[in-house]
């Protein structure tokens, strides 16, 4: 049981998908203009992650190794369509705010990476817990980033006025540069914390954990980066 618990907590802090593994950067930057959007995106991705991890783990002995990536993508796309319909039906405002980033969960590398690295090698229960933990970690980071950007950019947190009306908001935080900037600062902060606790520091993009690492290495992209990482 203890081991199962570890699978769950692994994704929340030690291997936080956005800050430690640096996967799924596109939605992290794109939808976090408000805390609520971060929560919505996080929950939607968590649902897909848990379901796809469970399904892939169940099918892990059936799917031939050669076509596993297309098979994984098809499974993931199926669950994404389901979640998309659920969001559209029950929370249309979130659906509007997330826009095309909701269907783009299909190509979110966190999900494919967990399918490839964990679910295709482990039994169902740990896979579900791993998906849940990763999803919670993703949701937490997105919410945090949404709160920071919403606070500085609009003076509110979860639509509650904090400094609104007293201090002029810095709209730049809601614009694309603010996303890059806040994410950069958060990664720096998580690196500082990791260093304090004697954990390895994230110096480059999450190539180690990316499902397409082998290809990237050959393309000389990540290889170049890892060369500089002593």
């Amino acid at each position, binding site marked *: 049981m203890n081991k199962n618990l570890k699978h769950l907590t692994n994704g929340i802090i030690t291997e936080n998908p956005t800050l430690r593994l640096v996967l799924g950067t596109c939605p992290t*930057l794109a939808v976090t203009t408000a805390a609520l959007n971060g929560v919505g995106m996080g929950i939607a991705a968590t649902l897909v992650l848990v379901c796809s991890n469970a399904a892939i783990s169940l099918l892990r002995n059936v799917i031939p190794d050669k076509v596993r990536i297309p098979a994984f993508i098809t499974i993931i796309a199926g669950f994404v369509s389901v979640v998309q319909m659920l969001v559209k039906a029950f929370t249309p405002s979130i659906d509007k705010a997330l826009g095309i980033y909701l269907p783009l969960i299909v190509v979110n590398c966190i999900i494919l990476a967990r399918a490839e690295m964990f679910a295709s090698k482990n039994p169902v229960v740990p896979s579900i817990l791993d998906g849940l933990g990763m999803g919670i970690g993703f949701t937490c980071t997105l919410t945090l980033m949404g709160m920071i950007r919403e606070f500085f950019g609009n003076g509110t947190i979860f639509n509650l006025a904090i400094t609104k009306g007293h201090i002029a908001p810095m709209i730049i935080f809601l614009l694309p540069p603010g996303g890059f900037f806040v994410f950069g600062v958060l990664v720096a902060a998580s690196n500082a914390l990791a260093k304090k606790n004697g954990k390895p520091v994230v110096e480059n993009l999450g190539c180690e954990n990316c499902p397409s690492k082998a290809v990237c290495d050959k393309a000389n992209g990540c290889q170049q980066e890892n060369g500089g990482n002593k």
Partner: protein
Amino acid sequence: MKITLITSILLAGILTNNMVLSKFLGICPFLGVSTKVKTALSMSIAVTLVMVISSAVTWPINYYILKQEYNYLQTIVFILVIAAIVQLIEIFLKKYIPPIYKALGIYLPLITTNCAVLGITLLNVQNEYGFVPSLVNALAAGLGFMLAMVLFAGVRERLETADIPVFLKGLPITLIAAALVSLSFLGFAGIGG
């Protein structure tokens, strides 16, 4: 009328609504493969090629087959079509145009799971573009991607030799540099209506 539409799509895709810097699509290759100008250029040519071909194939599928009643199948159909197209392009180039395959082939598998390609096909549907505007949109997005990649590769080559505070080394400074490049692109806002 048509020419103004096409120019405005081109300008929006390349400058004002740049795919990477304002829509955050294709961040992984933007940060991962932009360490050298040459790799950045080849990668973006491959992305542009796949985006234009995928738009050309998904548009008729969406318009004639999926229409309104099956639009819940969009996501799953589009991703499968893109995956198949990437495979086909790879096979085709390998057999018939080996020099291009040698230059771009390596980037093709990376593109299947690149959110930029799926993103652009979905945006075409969302904006209700016709066939030609869809292709122009894909081309513009590809050129915008190329511009951002090449510019950023230049910035990163400079970063290599810069004296950076310890806690910002690596990814954090790269992201902050991206913020500054993105900030400069905000200056284009308003061009092309």
